[in-house]
């Protein structure tokens, strides 16, 4: 199976996985491959390597997809269109406020609020939230396929839980009621509210409570819009034409992580299509067992390879075989955790993959 078959017929492809597994380059390679097949594709990258960003012409800001000139991708014939962008979380957050605020003045007030500023610029949570927000926004446009790279979290599950936490905060009608003195919500909440509010002040400090109150007062009726959006996003993520693709490397921990993430996707009933495992050490082609790699080494019949060098070459090959064996065992472990979904393997290229050559190398393997 190749990557085109993996995500065929899907409108949204979300690449998830732990940090350092080549998610960004893989996302871009998927987008290139599908654009080459004639689709109009947009890829949203998060914090791409500078060289990759430059190669795709992403250096300009704008927070909107831009058409990638076909000549930036040597050797690829783009029958469709490739659009690419680099996510700007703060900007996406601000745009969202502009969109849902009842007036520009209110939007401005919110953007000046201390709690909002903290919320929208916090490293953890805001990338995840805004990535999903951007996806939602672009899903309304006329792309055939959206490919979303996801933020580098310490665990992949964070990508699914963080946006919900932020939405719960923004859309927390109950919280508003709690913070509004003598509001009807207070009475409705009954026993809990008064001591909770008192304790909240005790624990967090009065100033924080008043800042939050100010923030939620500004949000006013907008919380309903946040909740409605969250519900539509949830629909989008669970839709039958959405595909979650797990990206991993073949080492122990990333594979553990991938297995955990697979379980989360299954629990949340999200559409999972398969995995792409990068940097797989390939086994040496099996020499006849009675001969082994050693016997086939050109020690005697190739002039210029002294025995001492041959010994080092053998040690290197033996070490490599251990890694290939490890990778194979890990991929089998991953396969056992899957319900038959395919696993595409990308070999280790013994070089950095964070540039256009790396992207094209991964693309060649995925779409062969």
């Amino acid at each position, binding site marked *: 199976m190749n990557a085109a078959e993996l995500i065929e017929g899907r409108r949204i492809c979300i690449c998830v996985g732990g940090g350092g*597994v080549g998610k960004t380059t893989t996302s871009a390679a998927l987008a290139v491959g599908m654009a080459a097949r004639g689709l109009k594709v947009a890829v949203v990258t998060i914090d791409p390597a500078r060289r990759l960003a430059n190669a795709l012409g992403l250096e300009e800001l704008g927070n909107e997809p831009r058409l990638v000139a076909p000549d930036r991708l040597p050797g690829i014939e783009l029958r469709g269109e490739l659009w690419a962008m680099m996510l700007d979380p703060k900007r996406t957050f601000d745009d969202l406020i502009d969109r849902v605020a009842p007036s520009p003045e209110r939007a401005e007030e919110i953007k000046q609020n201390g709690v909002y500023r903290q919320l929208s610029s916090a490293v953890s949570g805001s990338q995840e939230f805004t990535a999903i927000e951007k996806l939602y926004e672009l899903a309304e446009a006329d792309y055939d396929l959206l490919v979303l790279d996801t933020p580098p979290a310490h665990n992949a599950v964070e990508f699914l839980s963080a946006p919900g936490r932020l939405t719960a905060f923004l859309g927390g009608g109950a919280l508003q009621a709690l913070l509004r003195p003598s509001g009807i919500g207070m009475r409705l909440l009954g026993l809990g509210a008064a001591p909770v509010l008192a304790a909240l002040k005790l624990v967090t400090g009065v100033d924080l409570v008043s800042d939050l109150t100010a923030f939620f007062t500004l949000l006013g009726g907008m919380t309903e819009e946040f909740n409605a959006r969250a519900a539509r996003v949830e629909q989008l993520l669970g839709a039958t034409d959405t595909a979650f693709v797990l990206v991993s490397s073949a080492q122990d921990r990333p594979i553990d992580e991938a297995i955990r993430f697979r379980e989360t996707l299954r629990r949340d009933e999200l559409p999972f299509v398969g995995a792409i495992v990068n940097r797989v050490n390939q086994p040496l082609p099996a020499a006849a067992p009675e001969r082994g790699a050693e016997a086939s080494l050109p020690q005697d019949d190739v002039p210029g390879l002294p025995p001492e060098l041959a010994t080092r070459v053998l040690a290197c090959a033996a070490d490599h075989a251990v890694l290939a064996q490890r990778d194979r065992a890990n991929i089998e472990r991953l396969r056992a955790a899957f319900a038959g979904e395919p696993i595409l393997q990308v070999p280790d290229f013994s070089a950095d993959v964070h540039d256009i050559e790396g992207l094209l190398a991964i693309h060649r393997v995925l779409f062969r």
Partner: protein
Amino acid sequence: MIFVTGKGGVGKTTVALALGLAGAHAGRRTIVADLGGIGDQAEVQVAPGLFRISVDPQSAMEEYLSVKVPGPAAAALRGSRLFQSFAMATPGMRELLCMGKLWELAQFERRTPDADAYDLVIVDAPASGHGAALLRTPRTFAEIARVGPIAHQARTIADTIADPVFTAVVAVSTAEEMPVNETLELRDALATATDPLELERVILNGRYPDRFGAADAELLSAAREASPQPAAVPVLDVALAEHHRAALQQLQERRLRAEFGERLQVLPYLFTPSVELPQLELLATELAR
């Protein structure tokens, strides 16, 4: 307290454990704390003098409430889903709770009942950007909340983190371009923070051996061209690929060396099926040098 951070996938957890083992061997009661919340949330002994704990905001919150809030209010809060979801969603609160727990682990007077003090707390921290943000959280929170017990607590934690006698940050990198870039960015981010910190050490993890020199590589290429035995070709390719990778790594190691000099420490790539205690022992020995 040592915070171990670096780009995703560089082996932070392995290095944190190896540092922990080195600490335990030096006779210091050591705990390695991760923030995944996936492992055991109690302090568990894993080797003589070495403990592990997985810190998560939820249990940190419950522990904090039971210690800090008097009487029935604590129970009301613990039982209140409203409060829980509110607290967890408040920007920075989760990070602050985790930092609070880590800080508590490093106190000689533990607030956890019957808990002994540690000489060394090693934090298997999130990746660079998130790691630096985590370190900033107490100060940020103290400024937002201004007054009240949390502000007070946050300020105390922030002051300890800012104290280089108490806190060190160690960056882990591999000898590849992106992780090295991130290490340099981390150094700059820490240096320009409100409470500037310096990278105590940079650990280059997974350095490939320089098994073949340039002359060797020429011989290998020649042999590959001339080889009449197809089975020998992939073996030679593996050797040439390793040579190529080692050469690239050398460039990146030089970049780090130029910036960090003696503060750079190199750990070898381990060609083993997995990293277990014997491999960690090996790395701990390297680190203790």
